[in-house]
Every structure is written in structure tokens, then in C-alpha cells.
């Protein structure tokens, strides 16, 4: 074991100052940079959400009297949350965890890894630059033509072009990152680390990377066609000149539906690491979980048109059927997780609590999602607040709770210090209650017919109370990050020293020091199961089958 693991200094594994951080090719530092960068954009996008919620608290235009600014804010809220928070945050946690978990010294292409990261802040600056060049993109994160075409009332400014360039740049970063993950996972595993001994986190990053590799180039093509239409007089999407507006939706969603699995599979991987560790049990049905993950990835390519039921241009029974089928592998995973907890010796540390938050909230998001997959239901609920409720239950209730489970779980490995449990639990309670207060009422608003993407509504519509509740909840979510940030701040200075393995973990990252030395391992334990550190701790001769 690395001797300097015993040094209590927070920066034991990270020598050097700012210059070393900015020029690093170490996957651990790059992973941490991803996390910091993602939290910064999470903060900006969160403030935008609060502005949107503040405007919607009551009927009438109070705060954002310019409705075009409202459009820019909800567009940029979604864009930043999706492309610069959730996706890179999960990629960052994967960047930190995957090489450690497979016993590799680094990613396969460390310099491409750094390149992938540094495209993100640049893309963020491009996206936000729209606000000072006459208005950011305002056509929603989907940027459908004709909203994005050069015509009155549309998102006509240079902000929309900056948006296209920024998102293409983020896509390129994702593709390079995905290739890096795939080569790392296929080529750099330690001796004994067979595919079916890989931690579930690694499996989910593998499937996610395949989805990114195959789907992200397609949105690149969609956005480039949009750019050509807007700037070079192209005729892809304007029906007046022989184009086809629905074509954009097809190409866009061919990426953007698999993208929702890009946004949730790694979070599923995180909680599949957390649940076994804090239940003192192996993950129930490891192989079933792996196949379910691959199944979600495969089916994910055949459901994109369920976003387009009301266009009248898609074959409804097929896409509805495949969409329902997605709930089968997802249900398998739910069963895996619950059966892992069942009869376990549970330790209710913060990571486990957030993981249970994921389980419960993602379940609601899955159920209201399957509900909307029914074509007649979708026709009634399309573009209402029901959809906003659904997507936040899966992306916030699912992915963001998963992200925090991962942050609390790996923070001691990243920094050598434990986060404070009390503050962590305050964070959880505020976020959990605030989340449900914000997004549960949106189901009712959607059923009552409130459309999404509006800045104002009539006070006689009967939507006042639920909107006020959602706004109060939104600010509660905002407040929940105060104890979290304070927790990070004080724990980095005075937190309990973590040691190598504070949680009695199962996977290889817990076999090295906290933080790990450059190139991660001085030596590796023998790998005979998917829980090599558990085997090492309990002196098992062989891990046995799953």
C-alpha cells in the first residue's frame, strides 16, 4: 500500500499548484475538474430555474416582463443542465472511478481526456455569450425549426448560432470521451478483471459510451444542417422550399432519446456501487443487471419517435410498444436494487440515503413515463407540465440524486476527507422535500392542461396554488445547496481523515490510498470476483460465482 496514504494532508495525492491542475492529464484530476466545472454550470442553470419559477409563482408578468428573456432562460436552463451538468458530471465521476475500478493506471488516451474536458468550459462560454450578443438561444433546448429559423418571433439572434456551435463542441467532447472510456475498459483492465468481474459502474459507463459513440454524431449532423439552414441558405427544414421540419425532429430525437440513458445509466451505476456497500451484501443478480443495462441501451435506439407522437408522421404502435418494453429491463434493475437492500445490514450514511432517494424518485419518474407512453394519454399530455414533471423525476429525482450519492461516496477517495454526515442529511432532507414540492404539483398542472414554456397564465385557469407550491419547492432546492457547499468547504479543511477504505468498499478504488497516488496503484490485490477488496478483507480464497 502506498506509504503516503498515512499522510493526513488533504492534497496528499495531488502535488503542485494551479498550473499542474490546468495542464494535468491525470484521470483523477481531470475527473475532479469535470465535477467542479459541472457544479459551476449547475449553479448557473439553477439560478435560471429559480428565475423561471419566480416568474411563474403568480399569474401576470412580474419579474421577467420581457417574455423573450423568459424564453432564453428556460432554454439555457435546460441546455446547461443537460449538456454541461448531468452528462459531464457523470462523465467526470466515471473519469475518476473507472480506471481505479478496473485497476488501470490511467485512461487509454490521457491527453485526449484533457482535451475532452477543456472543450466544456469553452462551450459553456459560447452558450452563455448569447446573453451579451443580443439574446441567447430561446427556442427551447430542442431548438425545433421553424422556431429556430430566421423569421419573426423565432430565435433569430446570433445566440442560436452560438448555441449550435456550443452543443456541437460538447458533443465532440462526449464522443472523444466515450472512445476513451471504451478503449480503457477493453484494453486496460488489470489481470483477473474479466468483463463479468467489472464493477457495475464500469458496465454502465461502457454501455453509456456505446450510446454516445453511436448517437451523439447524429445530433451533430442535425445541428449542422440547422446551422446550414440558418446561415448558408440551406433548404433542409423549411417546407416552403422543399424541406421537411419533422426531419429535424427525427434526427434530433434519434440522439436525444438515447441521450436520456446517457444521463441516467451512470447514475444507476453509482447507486449499484453504493447499495451493496451500505447493505453489506453483493448486488443481487449481477448478470441480470448487466444484461438489463445492455437491453436498455439497445432498446433506447428504437423509441425516439415517442417524443413525436403528435406530429402524425410516425408509426405510433411500434414506438409505443418499444417504449413500454423499456420498462422491463428497468424493472429488472429496480428488483435488483430492492433485493440488494432486502435483509441487508443497512448503514444509513449519506450516500445510501441519496441512493434510496434515487430509487424512490426514479420509480415515480418511470411510472409516469410509462403512463405517457400510451398514445392516447400522450396526445392529451403532450407539451403540458406533466412532461416537465416526468423529465424532472427521472433527471433530477434519478440522475441528480445519483450524482450526489456518488459525490458523497467518492469524496473521501478524491480528497482524503469525509464529508460531514449531519450536514449531508440536512442537504438530503431539504433537497428531497423541495424536489417533491416543486415537481409533484406539476403532474396536477399538466393534467389541468397547463402548457410548458409559457411565462404567464390566467389567474382564472385554476393553476395558481400548485404553481406557488412549485416555486416554494424550487427555492427550497436552491437552499439545500447551502449546507452542501458549506459541508464541502469545512470538510476539505477539518473533515475526518478518510483513510484508504472508509466505507469498507468492494471495488478496487478502495485498495489504494485516499487520494490515490499518480498511476493509482503500487500493487493490486488478486481479482477473483466482482468484489476484490471484499475478498481481500475477508481473506476469501475465491469470490465464487454471482
Amino acid at each position, binding site marked *: 500500500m502506498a506509504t503516503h496514504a498515512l499522510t493526513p494532508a488533504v492534497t496528499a495525492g495531488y502535488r503542485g499548484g494551479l498550473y499542474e491542475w490546468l495542464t494535468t492529464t491525470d484521470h483523477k484530476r481531470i475527473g475532479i475538474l469535470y465535477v467542479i466545472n459541472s457544479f459551476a454550470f449547475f449553479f448557473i442553470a439553477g439560478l435560471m430555474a429559480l428565475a423561471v419559477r419566480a416568474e411563474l409563482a403568480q399569474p401576470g408578468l412580474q419579474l421577467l416582463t420581457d417574455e423573450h428573456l423568459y424564453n432564453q432562460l428556460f432554454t439555457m436552463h435546460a441546455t446547461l443542465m443537460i449538456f454541461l451538468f448531468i452528462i459531464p458530471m457523470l462523465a467526470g465521476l466515471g473519469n475518476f472511478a473507472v480506471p481505479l475500478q478496473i485497476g488501470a493506471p490511467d485512461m487509454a488516451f490521457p491527453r485526449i481526456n484533457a482535451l475532452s474536458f477543456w472543450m466544456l468550459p469553452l462551450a459553456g462560454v459560447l452558450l452563455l455569450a448569447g446573453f451579451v450578443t443580443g439574446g441567447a438561444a430561446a427556442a427551447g433546448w430542442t431548438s425545433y425549426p421553424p422556431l429556430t429559423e430566421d423569421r419573426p418571433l423565432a430565435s433569430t439572434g446570433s445566440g442560436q448560432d452560438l448555441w449550435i456551435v456550443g452543443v456541437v463542441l460538447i458533443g465532440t467532447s462526449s464522443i472523444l470521451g*466515450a472512445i476513451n472510456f471504451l478503449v480503457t475498459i477493453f484494453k486496460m483492465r488489470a489481470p483477473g478483471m474479466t468483463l463479468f468481474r467489472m464493477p457495475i459502474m464500469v458496465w454502465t459507463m461502457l454501455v453509456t459510451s456505446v450510446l454516445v459513440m453511436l448517437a451523439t454524431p447524429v445530433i451533430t449532423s442535425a445541428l449542422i444542417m440547422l446551422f446550414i439552414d440558418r446561415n448558408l441558405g440551406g433548404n*433542409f427544414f423549411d417546407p416552403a422550399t422543399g424541406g421537411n421540419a419533422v426531419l429535424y425532429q427525427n*434526427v434530433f430525437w434519434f440522439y436525444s432519446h438515447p441521450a436520456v440513458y446517457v444521463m441516467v445509466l451512470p447514475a444507476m451505476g453509482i447507486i449499484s456501487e453504493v447499495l451493496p456497500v451500505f447493505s453489506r451484501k453483493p448486488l443481487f443478480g449481477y448478470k441480470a443487471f448487466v444484461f438489463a443495462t445492455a437491453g436498455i441501451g439497445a432498446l433506447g435506439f428504437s423509441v425516439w419517435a415517442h417524443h413525436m407522437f403528435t406530429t402524425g408522421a410516425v408509426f405510433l404502435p411500434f414506438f409505443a410498444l418499444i417504449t413500454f418494453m423499456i420498462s422491463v429491463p428497468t424493472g429488472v434493475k429496480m428488483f435488483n436494487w430492492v433485493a440488494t437492500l432486502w435483509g441487508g445490514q443497512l448503514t444509513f450514511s449519506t450516500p445510501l440515503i441519496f441512493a434510496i432517494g434515487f430509487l424512490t424518485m426514479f420509480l415515480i419518474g418511470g411510472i409516469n413515463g410509462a403512463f405517457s407512453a400510451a398514445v392516447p394519454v400522450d396526445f392529451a399530455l403532450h407539451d403540458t407540465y406533466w412532461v416537465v414533471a416526468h423529465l424532472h423525476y427521472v433527471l433530477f429525482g434519478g440522475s441528480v440524486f445519483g450524482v450526489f450519492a456518488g459525490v458523497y461516496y467518492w469524496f473521501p477517495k478524491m480528497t482524503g476527507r469525509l464529508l460531514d454526515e449531519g450536514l449531508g442529511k440536512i442537504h438530503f432532507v431539504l433537497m428531497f422535500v423541495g424536489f417533491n414540492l416543486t415537481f409533484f404539483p406539476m403532474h396536477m398542472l399538466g393534467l389541468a392542461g397547463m402548457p410548458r414554456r409559457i411565462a404567464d397564465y390566467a389567474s382564472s385557469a385554476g393553476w395558481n396554488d400548485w404553481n406557488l407550491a412549485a416555486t416554494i419547492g424550487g427555492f427550497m432546492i436552491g437552499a439545500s445547496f447551502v449546507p452542501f457547499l458549506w459541508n464541502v468547504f469545512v470538510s476539505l479543511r477539518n473533515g475526518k481523515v478518510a483513510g484508504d477504505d472508509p466505507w469498507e468498499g468492494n471495488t478496487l478504488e478502495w485498495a489504494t490510498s485516499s487520494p490515490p497516488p499518480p498511476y493509482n496503484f503500487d500493487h493490486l490485490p488478486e481479482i477473483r470476483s466482482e468484489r476484490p477488496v471484499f475478498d481481500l478483507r475477508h481473506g476469501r480464497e475465491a469470490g465464487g460465482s454471482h
Partner: protein
Amino acid sequence: MTADSHALATVEHSPVAGLAHDQRGGISNPVLGMLLFITSEVMFFAGLFAAYFNARASNAPWPPTEFEHTLEPIGLILVATIILVSSSFTCQWAVNAIKRNDRKMFIRNISVTLVLGVVFLLLQGYDYTVLYGEGLTMTAGPFGTTYFTLTGFHGAHVFGGVIMLAVVVYRGMAGQFSDRHHDLVEAVSLYWHFVDVVWIVLYSVLYWL
């Protein structure tokens, strides 16, 4: 410490067994990375082709009457096609040469490949001016938009390949490649073949079908 310090089961009967291998017999990291990158590039072109076929299916007649004789498969574009296809052969001869450690043949063939790539780009640029003269432009309806988007992005990929080839030539002249060390050459050759295949598909679809 590198990846090579970890042993991994060798892949002996893999379909990619002929490609560059690392010390343990597995396909090398740069070559695998390039194959995956090409996979993503295929999806990028698939998106553009989807748009092309969609435009073609919903706009009759195709080609529009005013451009009925604009895209002639025999002529300048056939010369360009022959040049690009030939460059794939010279590229592969270069790879085979460096595998035999025949550096002279390697440099000769890879340089010819580079020159052929540049000639292709020049011919394509000239062809664009001819087409513009005949009124086929980016703004000439879906027919013009899809033609220039598809061939333009292919040309951009050829340009990227030319830069990669230039790096290979430069490093080859510096003597950096041998029978044991040529992952970059192999990866670039795969990319070049990919660009060639895309052109064959484009030429067939745009000019013949």
C-alpha cells in the same frame, strides 16, 4: 507504468487480427480508438444521408428538371474518384511496406497518397466552381443543399485525412516508424480507407442512383 504492464488474454482469432497489435497480441489502443472513432463518423454521415433520402423521397422529380444533366457521372468527377480510390491502394502499400520495415517504399507510397489526396481536393474545388456556374448552389433547393452538404463534409474529412497523412510523412521522414512501431500509420490508413469508402457511396448515390 503503462497499459502494457497489465497482461490481458490475447485475442487470437479476432477479425481484426491483421491490425497493429500491442505486446500481448491484442489490438493496439490507437488502432482500436480509430476504429471506434470511424464508427461514430459512420453515424454522422448516416444522419446526413437520412436527410438526403428524405429530401429525395419528398421532392419529385429528383434531380429537379433544371439540374437533370448537371451531375454527370462520367467526366471530371470520375477522374477524381479514380484518384481517391487509387490513393487507398498506395496507402495500404505504405502500411504493408512499413510492416516489412521497408522505410523507403513506405515513404514513397505514403507521400503519393498525400499528393493524390490533395489532387482530389483541388479537383473537387474546381468542380464546385463549374457547378456554381451552372446554377447548382447551396441555396438551390434541397437538391443543391444536400449535394453540397454531403460532398462538402466528405471533402472536409479528406482535408482532415490529408493533414494526418502529412503528419505521417513528416514523422516517417524523421524515421519514427518501423516494423515494430507503426500504430499511427495503421490508424491513419484506416481513416483514409473510411474516407474513400464514404466517397464511393456518395459517388454511387449522388451520380448513379
